[in-house]
Structure formats: C-alpha cells, structure tokens
C-alpha cells in the first residue's frame, strides 16, 4: 500500500515538472521578456552562473517601456482594438444567427431537422485557415461567386475576402457550431409544464416565448457568446490567410514580430495581452456558468412540446439551410479546386484531373507522414499523462493538478508557441526546431480534452470496484490491468481520437514551431497558399479533411458502442 503510494508520488512530481518546464516557465519567460525587452534564459539561469548573472542584469533593467509602447505604438494599440472589435462583432453575429437555428432544432418539428443538424458539424472538421482559403476560392477576384455576381450585373467583388468583413464572415460561418449546441441545450431548459403554466395563466404563445422560454435561455446565450468571443480572439488560421497588410490583428502582429523581425519584446507584450484577454473572458464564462448547472439538475426527464406551426417551421428550415449552405459550398469549392485543371473566373473549372493528388502523393507524402507521426506522438504522451492526471484528480482530489492541466485552455495557440520559442531557443535546453518540442506543444495544448475524457471514465469507476478486485486477491497492478484498464478504455479511445483530430488540424503551433523536415500537412497547405499554389493546397486540404472525417466517424462509433 505504502510503496504504491510512493511510486505514484514520483509520477505526480514528474507531471508537475513536465508542466512546470513546458508551460509555466515559458509563460513566466514571456511575462519577464515583456518587461526586459530582451530574451531571459530562465532554465539556463539554473544551470550556468554566467547566464544567471546576465539574467539578473536584465531583470535589473526592468522597465515599463514596452507597456508604454502599447499606447505610443499605433500598431499595437490598433491591433488590440481591431482584435477586440473582431471578436465582438463575430460574437454578436454568431448569437443572432444561432438563436433561430437553435430554437428550430430544440423546440420545433422543422422539416429536415436531422440533415440540418448533421450539416452543422461541417465547420468543425475544417481547420480555419482552409475555410479562409475556401472563401478566397469563392469570393476572391477570380472566385466563382464573384463571377456569378458579375453575371447578375454586379461590379467587382461581392465581398472582398481580404478584409475585416472577410475575416468576420469566415469566423461567423465556421465558429457558429460552437455556440449552437449549448444554445440548443439552453432552449431545452424550459419544459412543457412551465410553458403550459404560462398559457394557463392566460398568456399567448409569443408572450410565453418572450417572457418564459427566452429568459430561461439567457444564461446559456451569454455563456456561448463569451465562448465565441474567446475562440474568435484566439483564432490564428483565418487572420493569417485573410488579413490585409493594413489591418493589424494581435495574432498576426505577434506572429510577424517573432518570425519576421525577431522582436522579442514586442512579441512578448502582445502575447501577454492576448493571454490576459483570453483568460479574462474564459474566467467570465466560467463564473457565469458555475452554479447555474441548468438543464440536467433534476433527474426527472423533461418533456418538450414541439412547435408544429407550418409557416414558422418551414421558414426556420429554409433559414437554417441558408446558414449551413455557406460552409457546405466552401467545402465543395475546395473539393472542386482540388480536381480542377484550371479554374479561372468562371462558375466551374475548365476541366477535371487527379494530377494534383498525384503530385501530392509523389512530393508531399512526407507531410502526411509527419502529421500522422506527430499526432501519434502527442497522442501517446497525452494518454499516459491524462491517465495519471485523472487518477490524481478523481482519486486524490488534487485540485492543483486539475487547475494546472486546464491552463492550456485559456492560452491562445500563437501565444503558447511564442512562449515556447522564447524559452527553448537557447542552451541548455535548445529544443526549438525539434520534433520533440512540437510533440510536447501539441500534447500540452490538447491535454485538457484528453483529461476530460479519461476523467469522466475514471469517475464512473467506483472506488469499491477496485477494492473488490483487491479483496479477491488481485495486486494493485493486476487490478489495474484486469479491471480499471478495461473500464477506462472507452474514455481513453474517445479522448485519443479527439486529440488526434485536433493535432492534425492545429495551425498556429505547427506554423511557429515545425522545422522544415517535420512540416505537417497544415504547414504544407499554409505554405502552398502563401505561394499561391492553390491546386495542391486544395488537394492536401481535402486529404486532411477526409482524414479528420474518418477519425470523427471512428469516434462516433466508439461513442455509440460505449453507450450501449
């Protein structure tokens, strides 16, 4: 008993060390650099006295110049303003768009409800930089929508994708599912008894909606809105593809400072601000949803009365189709481009070919391989860490561990990438540009998903099941292999698929940290887009989306089996 506890304590210390080294120290480093304006080698300070003394020198020179710069440097202040207003506009639009859609799914018998729900998952499988790129195919100067618009007598582009409007539209149409499902849940809170009570008290249907159904959904609406704000604010894929030179956005600005100008201080201060903003909104959402565990509180199944009014349900159905049509067309555009010989300013490509796929399989197979290897690496690492973390959190009530492993949720990918580069680009731990750092970065960034999944499974295993095995003669190890392991497996499998998918979709970390010889698919596509090699970018995108789809299907299959 005692010996096992000691073994576990060592594992616990190792996990803390891992997070300390690869998450907390980098974040601290960025924070310090935002004051010193020069790289501070924290890890080196522990191993080399010379580095230590130079670090101390730098820390003595701490000043607030950088922070003053936010206000003096028009670029920084603009980028903060622009990023905030982007997130705000996207937030408002997404909520406005989603309310009728969510109401339709939750409370009406609108036609084609299942199809619409299924189509709403499309945006989730496409990485945002591919959606941004799809918008170029559609709305760009040579896009088919533009052509269509001109045929109808319009002049120039309907919407310029390389603009704030373009970015807003991409984010709205590809982030709305994040808000949709919480909103559907929110609209389901008000049950038939409450609404019948309202009718019984003499209210009309519309009155009931405005004063009963809708107010009950408000906490859900606010929480979804804040989620969208954070997602939009942290998104890197869309702005990096679509932001024009004169539009400053924090994520893009930070990326340029670090990879273009090697401006340590500038990148650091942008990173710190990004993290503070994202963390603030995450925290806001957290405290708003905390204690309002609406919906699932009572064990009594709630009965919903579905609205069957034909005019209402039909118009909702048409509206919903229009919303999901945009991502669907975007996906089809990429698919079409990937098999096009050339696709000029025309409604359809001039011819069809599979040569782009041939090119990819002959020249870029390495990228696919890299993606898979990196994803498997991150997967194995996160499975191992997640199992122990959930054990500590569930069985030993380790709140500290729970908190630490959720920190990555609030750190935008680009910010985390910058923090890692600034920490690991010098000896003694020079890891920048290695596959190891890339895998570690993916792991830490996606670990919260894995932990949640295994923690759920771990919670379901009651302590007495483990005790029963021991009582029947099994050693703790045997009990772990024959009882705990098999019971934990579905949770691990579901989490694994999720980690694998998100790592393959990952943009910001890949672009910042991947060395050329380890370039994953996402980086290859990104570079192709930059080089205007659209056809191979399209083909690679289709392969990426197909891979994600297959894995998603696998996850659904596992999920279904688990419920049986």
């Amino acid at each position, binding site marked *: *008993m005692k010996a096992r506890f000691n073994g576990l304590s060592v594992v616990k210390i190792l996990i803390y060390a891992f997070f300390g080294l690869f998450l907390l120290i980098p974040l601290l480093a960025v924070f310090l650099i935002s004051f010193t304006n020069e790289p501070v080698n924290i890890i080196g300070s522990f191993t080399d006295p010379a580095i230590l003394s130079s670090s101390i020198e730098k820390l003595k020179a701490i000043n607030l110049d950088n922070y003053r710069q936010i206000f003096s440097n028009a670029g920084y202040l603009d980028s903060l303003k622009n990023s905030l207003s982007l997130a705000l506009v996207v937030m408002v639009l997404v909520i406005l768009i989603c309310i009728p859609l969510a109401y339709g799914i939750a409370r009406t018998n609108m036609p084609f409800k299942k199809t619409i729900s299924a189509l709403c998952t499309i945006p989730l499988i496409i990485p945002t930089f591919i959606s941004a790129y799809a918008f170029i195919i559609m709305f760009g100067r040579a896009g088919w929508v533009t052509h269509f618009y001109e045929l109808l007598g319009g002049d120039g582009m309907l919407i310029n994708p390389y603009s704030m409007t373009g970015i807003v539209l991409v984010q709205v149409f590809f982030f709305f599912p994040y808000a949709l499902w919480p909103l559907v849940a929110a609209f389901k809170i008000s049950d038939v008894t409450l609404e019948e009570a309202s009718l019984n008290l003499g209210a009309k249907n519309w009155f009931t909606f405005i004063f009963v159904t809708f107010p009950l959904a408000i906490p859900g609406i606010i929480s979804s809105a804040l989620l969208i704000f954070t997602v939009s604010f942290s998104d890197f894929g869309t702005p990096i593809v679509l932001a024009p030179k004169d539009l400053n956005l924090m994520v893009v600005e930070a990326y340029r400072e670090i990879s273009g100008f090697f401006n340590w201080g500038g990148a650091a201060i942008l990173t710190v601000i990004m993290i503070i903003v994202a963390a603030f909104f995450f925290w806001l959402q957290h405290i708003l949803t905390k204690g309002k565990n609406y919906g699932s509180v009572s064990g009594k199944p709630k009965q919903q009365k579905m609205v069957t009014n034909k005019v209402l349900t039909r118009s909702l159905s048409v509206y919903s189709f229009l919303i999901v049509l945009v991502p669907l067309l975007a996906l089809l555009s990429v698919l079409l481009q990937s098999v096009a010989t050339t696709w000029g300013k025309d409604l359809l490509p001039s011819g069809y070919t599979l040569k782009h796929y041939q090119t990819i399989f002959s020249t870029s197979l390495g990228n696919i391989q890299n993606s898979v290897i990196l994803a498997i690496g991150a997967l194995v690492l996160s499975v191992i860490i997640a199992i122990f973390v959930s054990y500590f959190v569930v069985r030993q009530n380790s709140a500290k561990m729970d908190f630490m492993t959720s920190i990555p949720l609030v750190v935008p990918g680009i910010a985390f990438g910058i923090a890692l580069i600034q920490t690991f680009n010098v000896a003694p731990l020079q890891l920048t540009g290695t596959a190891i750092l890339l895998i570690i970065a993916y792991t830490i960034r996606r670990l919260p998903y894995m932990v949640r999944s295994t923690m759920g499974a771990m919670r379901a295993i*009651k302590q*007495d*099941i483990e*005790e*029963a*095995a*021991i*009582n*029947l*003669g*099994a*050693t*703790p190890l*045997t009990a772990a*292999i*024959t*009882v705990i392991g*098999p*019971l934990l497996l579905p949770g691990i499998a579901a989490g694994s698929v999720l980690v694998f998918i998100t790592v393959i979709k990952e943009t910001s970390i890949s672009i910042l940290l991947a060395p050329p010889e380890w370039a994953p698919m996402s980086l290859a596509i990104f570079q192709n887009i930059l080089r205007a090699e659209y056809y191979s970018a399209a083909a690679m995108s289709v392969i990426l989306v197909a891979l994600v789809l297959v894995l998603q299907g696998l996850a659904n299959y596992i999920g279904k089996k688990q419920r049986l």
Partner: protein
Amino acid sequence: MGSVIIEKMTKQFGEFTALHDINLEIQEGEFFALLGPSGCGKTTTMRCIAGFEQPTSGKIKIGEKEVEKIPANRRNCGMVFQSYALFPHMNVFDNVAYSLNIKQLNASNPVKQLGIYARLLSKRLGRTPKDIQEKVMKILKYVELDQHADRLTSELSGGQQQRVALARALVMEPAVLLMDEPLSNLDQKLRHSMRNTIRTIQQDLGITTIFVTHDQEEAMSMADRVAVMDKGNIVQIGTPTELYSNPLTPFIADFVGTSNIIDVEIVEQINGTIKLKGDNFLLQSTNTIEKKQAKAIIRPEHIQVLPYDTDVNKEEVNVLEGIVLMSTYLGPTVRYDMKVGDQEIIVDTTYSSGISIFEEGRKVKLSIDHGRVLLI
C-alpha cells in the same frame, strides 16, 4: 475458516478518532453482526479487517494469525460490498471466476501469467481451465444462478446481483466472510427472503461471517451475536435476546427495538422492590440499581391498556392512569401515544377484530409488571 480477534484497535483519520480501543472476539463459524447508526465506526472496523484501512494501533488476528503486515489482497477475507461492486465489463461467470483466475495467476511463472492476462482481457485469447469452470458452476448452482452464467451483471435483478456478489466472495473459500450492509439496496420483500438465504448458506458452510448493518431487525433476526457500536465504541456485545431484555445503556434500549425511557428518582428499596418517582406518577420495579437518579426502560409491548373502570388487584403490577393522546392503527398492532402524569409514553397493543380502539382523549388504566421495568 477461522476466528477473528481484535485487540485494542484504534483508528484515527487525521484529528478524528473513528474507533476507540475496540475489542472483539468472534468465534469460528459464528454469524456476528456489527450494529449501529451511520458514522458509528462499524464499516471502518470491517475495512480494517479486510485490510483496506490500517488501524492506527491495536491488533487484528484472523485464525490465530496477526494480519497487520498482510496486504488486503492476501488476507483471504471474502467481502460482499454494499453496492455489490460487480465488475461491469464481465459476465456473471467471469465475475465469480475472478478470484480463482487470480489465484492461478499468482501461482504461475511470468510467461504463463501473460497468457492468463490475455485470457482475462479477452475470451478469444484463451479458455478458462476445467477446474475453475467446475468450481464456478458449482457455486453458481448453489446460489441458483447457473442459468444466468453468461449474462452481464447489469442485466440481473437486484436480488440476483446480490447472489452473484455472494458467490464471488464464497468461491475463494475465505477464512471470513465480510458483508457490508448487503441488503440495503433491496426492497422490503426481497430483503426478507435474502435474510433467510444468507443465514441458510452461512449455517450450511459454517463460515465465520461478519455482517455490518444499521438495521436492528436485520441484525437481531440473522446474527448469533451482535455488537452494538456508537461513536467509535462498542457499547454492548451479546445475543439478540440479551440485548433486547438487558440493554446496558439507554442508547441500546432505544436502538434495539423501541423503548420508553423515563427519568426516575429512587424513593425506597424494600424486599427487592424499588419504589420510583417519575414526573407526577409512581412506579415499582423488581430490578436492582445502586443509583439515586436512574432511567426506567419499559418496552411498549410490555404495557397493557385497560378501560378506566377495570379493577386491577394483582401483586407486582404497576397500575397507572393515562390519557390517550393519539392512536395509530398499524394492522396487527395499535400504537397509542399516552400521557401519564407529565410523561409521554408509547404503548403497543395487539389488535384483533372486535376489540374497539380507545379514542383520543379517553382516560384509561395502564398495567405494567414490576419485572418489566428495567433500570439503568
């Protein structure tokens, strides 16, 4: 098989002392119940015997052997958990076979162990040896579940799950059988029949059994002896009849069955009869006590209710005057809440048809044998 001896066992959780200096001696083959309200330490005592908790101090001997240094997985105490703790990913057969497979695993070399692990994880990777199969089927037949060997445990009823848990514990031929509130998850009727099943199996196998419960009826009807626990102490150990007729403290009198507990003052003691003064009424008892202030314990069923005009002229009977506050018809019995002097008293009378129930506010006479007034 073996006896279980606990000497001066204390268990602390941080500042909280869950067990104070517990002493217990459980005979071989005895059916022993640990009875007490929740939080009294009965489950902790059992978990210490099973090895899930280490006592802070004291000794535990199972079959003459001290077990402090033996880990839980080698104590050979079959345990039936309150929730049954059946393995949800295994069917009935595999649940019961588990301990036998583990026994085989522990006795094998590392290469063979891999094979056994593989077999435990997937049936396709190996077959359960004949001797294990036979043993499992024999015990399943014994608990009348041989027809359900291939079922998942989640597909069984509560009573069936309970029997699987019992079979799983029995198949390892444990030195002691531990049962933690095994009947609490069953409905009233099933509980009655399971009581008989468990008692019969225990007698049949002659296995030393320790049974934890908060239900005094369960403990009294099944156990050979009962230890009543309260706040980490053992308050009294005895056979069910001893506990009922001679409770050592008011707590036991109240916990084991229902009691009227009355504060009394001893007035005088003549020829083995003690005169007592309650709250505006007098009592006599043939029991003895050495104190000035005492508590009189009277069981509700030991009081007779008579019409007010009855003349009772028997020796050694207390006759009191009372007023009916409330009467509750419970089927075979009628329960009266009475006021005697300034004291409220509960009386249970058997009900048979034709006898009228005294209505509220009615004046009545109560008679209690002198011998039925216990003094603590």
